[in-house]
């Protein structure tokens, strides 16, 4: 029987109180990682922690507002103080995504929330985690390996007709990943992105309201469905977090059932 792939590793997953972040947190915990569920509200983070523990995993909740650098710094410091190390930082939290016309878009309403939680927060997470990811990579082979994983979107590659300002926020994360992959390669840290299309609560709610949307998405997807947050998206995150991906850096894995094939 194989040992669990993330035994003794510590991971922070932002936005893990629901959706893709929750799925990633669950999957990493299944493989032995102690997961910090970094959620903006304890009301969403704590139930995920309880659920992971009920399944035999290890997790703690640290309330974190990723748009505030001091909050991210505190989350990382608290993690290391409680758990002794940090090996994997997954930045998934994101706020915004209100449909708009670009010519009428308002910076404060339509852009700033996405810029702060997508772009700024990626840099905050990277900055705060870096010393600990360096330390993780300095451990003997098989006992560590610094990983930064940013959750982007296919829209960050192909643009968006409905939420035009969503795309640049997500595109920035890919550029940050490539840049830091170059910068941190000397430390053995890998930096990658995942572009998921998954059954998050927001998307499933949208499907309930508009079944035609679900049909349209499934029809354009070769695999005929949206991804499962744990089994599909979480498993890609697991690959990128594990030793299996130690020679993969600066990349984006689009995990959408084959809907977008333009990379």
């Amino acid at each position: 029987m194989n040992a669990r792939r993330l035994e003794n590793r510590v991971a922070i997953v932002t936005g893990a109180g629901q959706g893709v972040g929750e799925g990633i947190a669950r999957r990493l915990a299944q493989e032995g990682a102690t997961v910090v569920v970094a959620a903006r509200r304890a009301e969403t983070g704590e139930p995920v922690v309880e659920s992971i523990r009920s399944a035999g995993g290890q997790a703690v909740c640290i309330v974190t507002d990723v748009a505030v650098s001091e909050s991210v710094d505190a989350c990382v410091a608290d993690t290391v103080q409680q758990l002794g190390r940090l090996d994997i930082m997954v930045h998934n939290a994101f706020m915004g995504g209100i449909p708009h016309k670009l010519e009428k878009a308002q910076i404060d309403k339509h852009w700033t929330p996405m810029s702060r939680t997508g772009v700024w927060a990626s840099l905050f997470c990277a900055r705060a985690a870096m010393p600990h990811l360096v330390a993780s990579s300095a451990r003997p082979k098989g006992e560590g390996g610094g990983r930064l994983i940013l959750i982007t979107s296919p829209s960050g590659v192909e643009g968006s007709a409905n939420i035009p300002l969503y795309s640049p926020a997500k595109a920035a994360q890919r550029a940050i990943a490539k840049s830091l992959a170059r910068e941190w390669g000397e430390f053995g840290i890998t930096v990658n992105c995942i572009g998921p299309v998954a059954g998050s609560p927001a998307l499933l709610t949208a499907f309930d309201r508009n079944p035609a949307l679900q049909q349209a998405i499934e029809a354009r997807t070769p695999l005929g469905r949206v991804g499962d947050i744990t089994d599909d998206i979480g498993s890609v995150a697991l690959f990128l977090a594990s030793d299996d991906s130690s020679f993969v850096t600066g990349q984006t894995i689009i995990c959408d059932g084959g809907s977008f094939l333009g990379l």
Partner: protein
Amino acid sequence: MSVKVSGKGALAQVLRDGVHSDTRSAVIVVDLDGENSITSLTKLTDTYIDEIYEQPMQRVITALQEAHSTNCERIVVVVPTTGMSGGACYAPQAALAESARILVKSAARQWGTNGITVNAVAVEPHWFSIDTSISGAVAIAPRSLTNEVSPVGVVTWLCSEAARDITGQTIVCDGGLWM
């Protein structure tokens, strides 16, 4: 017809002097500061992110909106290839370049029904004072063309009536370095 070129620096001036068009056009040179690389991400400050990424990106959004409101038929956004390649010590600058480049696609998708084309031209990093000895090479292979490369011709064409069927694209004008 007029071509309005927004942006600062030598590249904006070259385009201001050289680009002419038979359509109403706007050329937006992203205000990317390549002179201020940051040696370690641990030194990144909120002020730096604001100055290097946030404010220039907001200016790109505003410039696109102005181009739309003044009925431009052709809009071209000029960025360095650093957004596509990434750049060590240039993460915020690379983020800005890629944000602007992908926003072009969103704009193209929304404004195409009005006959507006929106495209990007990606040029060599040196136009934005990016030091590739710091950022890392854009590509493994050397540049294909050895002559000096100017984006004036490509931008002029994208601003022309002849390019009416091209939108949401990025034309890399770097002499065959990024492929």
